[in-house]
C-alpha cells in the first residue's frame, strides 16, 4: 500500500564505471555538508539565548500568591483529580489564627507535589483550579540526573513573595476568564 505516492522502485541494475568510482557521490555528499556549514544554525546557545515562546506555552507550573502575598491554593484536590497522568499529590492543613497573611483560605496545602516526569503538561490542572492558584508558565523544567529530583515540592512551585520576582500569568488569562472573575452577580465574586 502506498501512503505518500513518493516511493521509488529500487532497480538492481549493474553500476556504470563512473558509479563504481564512487567519487562523484562522495563529492556530492561533501557539497551538501559544505552548504550546511554556511546555513543558519538550527540550535541556539541556551540558556544565554532563548527562543520566543507562545504566551500560553505550557511549561513548568507555578503556585500563585494573591495580591497580599498569601498562597491561593486551598488544597481542594481538583487539579489532582483532573490530572490524567496522576502526577499531582497534596496534603492539606488547617490555617491557624495569625497565619492569614501566608494563606488565603481556612485550609491550605501543607505538601504539594508534582512529579514532573509524570506530568504531560496538558494544562487540565490549570483549567480545573477554582482558586486561580496553579498556572503553567513559559518556564522550562530543567533537566537533571536523579529521578527523585523531578518531584517538585512547594519550594520549587510557589512563587516568591517579592513583587518583582512574581511570575506573570496575565497573558494566560483570557478575556472570558477575566469577565467571569469580575462579574459581581456570580456568587463567588462577592
Amino acid at each position, binding site marked *: 500500500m502506498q501512503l505518500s505516492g513518493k516511493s521509488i522502485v529500487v532497480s538492481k541494475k549493474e553500476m556504470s564505471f563512473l558509479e563504481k568510482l564512487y567519487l562523484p557521490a562522495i563529492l556530492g555528499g561533501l557539497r551538501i555538508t559544505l552548504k550546511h556549514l554556511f546555513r543558519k544554525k538550527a540550535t541556539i546557545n541556551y540558556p544565554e539565548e532563548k527562543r520566543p515562546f507562545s504566551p500560553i506555552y505550557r511549561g513548568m507550573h507555578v503556585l500563585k500568591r494573591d495580591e497580599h502575598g498569601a498562597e491561593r491554593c*486551598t*488544597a*481542594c*484536590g*481538583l487539579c*489532582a*483529580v483532573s490530572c490524567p497522568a*496522576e502526577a499531582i499529590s497534596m496534603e*492539606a*492543613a*488547617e490555617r491557624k489564627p495569625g497565619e492569614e497573611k501566608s494563606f488565603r*483560605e*481556612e*485550609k491550605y496545602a501543607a505538601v504539594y507535589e508534582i512529579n514532573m516526569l509524570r506530568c504531560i503538561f496538558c494544562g487540565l490542572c490549570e483549567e480545573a483550579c*477554582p*482558586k486561580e492558584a496553579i498556572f503553567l508558565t513559559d518556564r522550562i523544567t530543567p533537566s537533571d540526573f536523579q529521578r527523585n529530583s523531578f518531584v517538585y515540592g512547594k519550594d520549587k512551585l510557589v512563587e516568591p513573595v517579592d513583587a518583582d520576582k512574581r511570575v506573570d500569568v496575565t497573558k494566560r488569562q483570557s478575556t472570558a476568564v477575566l469577565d467571569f472573575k469580575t*462579574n459581581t*452577580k*456570580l*456568587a*463567588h465574586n*462577592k
Partner: protein
Amino acid sequence: MFKVTIDGIETEVEPGTTILQAARKIGGEIVPPTMCYYSSLEGSGGYCRTCIVKVSAGSAKDPRPMPKPVASCRTPVQDGMVVQNITSPELLEARAGVVEFLLINHPLDCPVCDQAGECDLQNLGFAHGKEESRYDFPRRVFEKKDIGNKIQLHMTRCILCYRCVKVADQLTPGRVHGVMNRGDVAEISTYIEQAVDNDMSGNMIDVCPVGALTDKTFRFKSRVWFVNPTDAHRNCTKCSGNVVLWFHGTEIYRVSARKNEWNEVKEFICNDCRFENKKIENWVVEGPRKIERKSVISQNHYEQYNQLKAQIEKQRARLANGETPDIGDISLRT
C-alpha cells in the same frame, strides 16, 4: 390501594403514602430531590421545599388542580391523583427558585469543605441552580464551633433542615443541641457550649445534607474522591456495626454509616464504631462499596474498568457465536 400518576407513570400505593414515597417506588429521574426529609427520622421534612411537585388533579372525585406546588414529602396521595415533577417547566422554575433561596447564605466554600463530592446541596445546585445570585446583601457570618471533640460545626453552611436535631431527639438519650434564635439569625447550637458526646451523636454528621456538621477526625485529611469506600462490619453491642470504611492506602481515614440509594442512612452507627475503631484489625472487610458512576467519588476507581472488561468479553463471546451484541445490557449505567 390508591392509584396515582406521577409524570405520566401510573403506580398503586397504600393509602397514607406520601407523594415522595410513591415517586421513590417508581424510581428514576422523576423522584423529587430532598434536602430535609429523611425516611429513617420520624417527623422530618417540610422545611426546605426542594421536593415540591405540581398536583394537576387532586383526586378522582375532585379533579381540580392544587393551587400551589406542594411539598411531596408531607402530602399524602389521593386516589386518582395526577402529579407532575420534571414534566412541568414552571415547577422546575419554582424549584430553581428554592435552590436560589437555599444558596442565599451559603458561603460556596466547596474547595475548603470536607463535604464536597458527597454534598446534597452541591448536587442540587448543579442540577437546578442558576449561575448568578440576585442577592445583594451580606451573607450571615458565624464563627466555626467545636461541638464536642469529634464534631465540627460550620454554621455558615447550614440550611436549617433540622435533621441533626431529629437525630438527637430520636437516637440519643438526652438532646443537648438544637436550633437557637429565629429567622435570619437562627443557628444550630448546644446549650451554653456544651459538648455533644453521647453514643449516637456522630450520626448527625451523616444526616447533614451540607458540610455544616463534619467529622473532626477526618477534617482536611483528604478529599472524598481520593479515599476508597469499602463495606465492612464488626461486632458491636451498641449498633449494627455495618459501616463504610474510607481507606487511603491501608489507613482508615474515616468511618461512616451506609447510605442507601436516596443518600439516607438506614442503620445508624455508634460513636465507638465511627471514631474509635480506625484500625483495619478491628473490622471484617466485605468488599468495595458500589458508588454511583456519576459521583466524583468513583473517579479513578478501577473496579468499573474490570466491569467494562467483563462486558467486552461477554459481547465478544456473543459475536463469536454469531449472535448480535447486546447493547442494552450495559450494567455500567448505574
